[in-house]
């Protein structure tokens, strides 16, 4: 039992950093870049993706013995699309302002390769408990990445964080950061940072061993 828990924990942790869906696997690019112009939008997108990922993994894992191999991808897509439709209507009812701002990108969660990828690579082959742990880990990893990008873009592009101004009036916002190019730049530089850290680590390991 103790060993099981340890591996479950491992499954959860790997999504946060070592196999982070955005920074390491570079999956789910379009929502990552399109809606992360403010921290609040990032959070909403991350929450919606988390919801879809969690319930799709639950259902796929439960049905893994029933789904025929030949039609599995189609089945996953139908399951995912169902939950996305749900989340779309939920957001429209609960937070109409944010729903309006995210627009068609909520519906585009369907084609986020992160979600389909986790169904195929993990949920379809593992027990419900492990599949949920994987979904939580990957969902949180995605959320962390989205929030990192959103925070950088909002601070630089708007001079605020969660709509609260953090600089005085003397700050001239870098408008470009909340426009499309800012998304490319921010993710590009964050990836650069990740690579640089990873490279230094491998070099340090090589020297010590």
């Amino acid at each position, binding site marked *: 039992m103790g060993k099981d828990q340890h591996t479950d924990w491992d499954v959860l942790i790997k999504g946060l950093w070592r196999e982070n869906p955005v920074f390491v696997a570079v999956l789910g690019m379009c929502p990552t870049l399109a809606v992360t112009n403010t921290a609040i939008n990032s959070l909403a997108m991350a929450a919606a993706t988390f919801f879809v990922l969690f319930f799709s993994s639950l259902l796929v894992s439960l049905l893994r013995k029933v789904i025929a191999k030949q039609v599995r991808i189609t089945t996953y897509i139908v399951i995912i699309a169902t939950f996305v439709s749900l989340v779309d209507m939920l957001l429209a009812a609960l937070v109409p302002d944010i729903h309006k701002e995210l627009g068609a990108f909520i519906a585009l969660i369907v084609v986020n*390769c992160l979600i389909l990828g986790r169904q195929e690579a993990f949920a379809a082959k593992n027990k419900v408990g492990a599949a949920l742990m994987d979904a939580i880990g990957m969902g949180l990893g995605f959320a962390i990445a989205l929030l990192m990008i959103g925070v950088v873009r909002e601070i630089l592009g708007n001079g605020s964080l969660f709509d609260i101004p953090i600089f005085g009036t003397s700050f001239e916002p870098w408008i470009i950061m909340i426009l499309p190019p800012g998304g490319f730049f921010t993710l590009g530089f964050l990836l650069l940072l990740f690579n640089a850290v990873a490279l230094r680590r491998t070099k340090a390991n090589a020297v010590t061993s």
Partner: protein
Amino acid sequence: MAQELLWIFISALLINNFTLAYFLGICPFLGVSNKVDTALRLGLANIFVMIITALAAWALNTYVLIYAPYLRLISFIIVIASTVQFVEMAIKKWSPELFRALGIFLPLITTNCAILGLALFATNKGYGLLEGIVYALGAGGGVTLALILMAGIREESRILDIPDAVKGTALSLIVAGILSMAFMGFAGMFSAA
């Protein structure tokens, strides 16, 4: 009417470029586009699938979804994927030449966010059949343009001395950012006219 259609085309092609302004179809943009030739063929396949998608979306919107709007997302994705499969089989049978040029890309493209994005945006904007097809042409052309530009830059950058940390996706993203900035300039094109 003609002016309106031209406006839809130019807007989708340059100003609201699917790849550089909406971030749709980023995966092939960052992953596949290493050679100009491959990029061109991928782009053409994209235009092709987009036109089929526009037709399918229009048909669904007009005949089916007025009765059940909540099924939009599910029916879009299933109908588009299966239509493309059928068309792929048809091409394979009737024109092996064309199949060799586009074939391997067709199933890949179907699951691309640009395709579903096209169907959704066209629906949100309330485009009819003709407008939808023009929109698909513009959007597909825009994706092709972005793919070719990116592939060209990548071909050239292979002979550059690039620091290890920047190599790969990080570099592509920063290049894409600069391209995206350049495309922002097109936004001023029509406001003056």
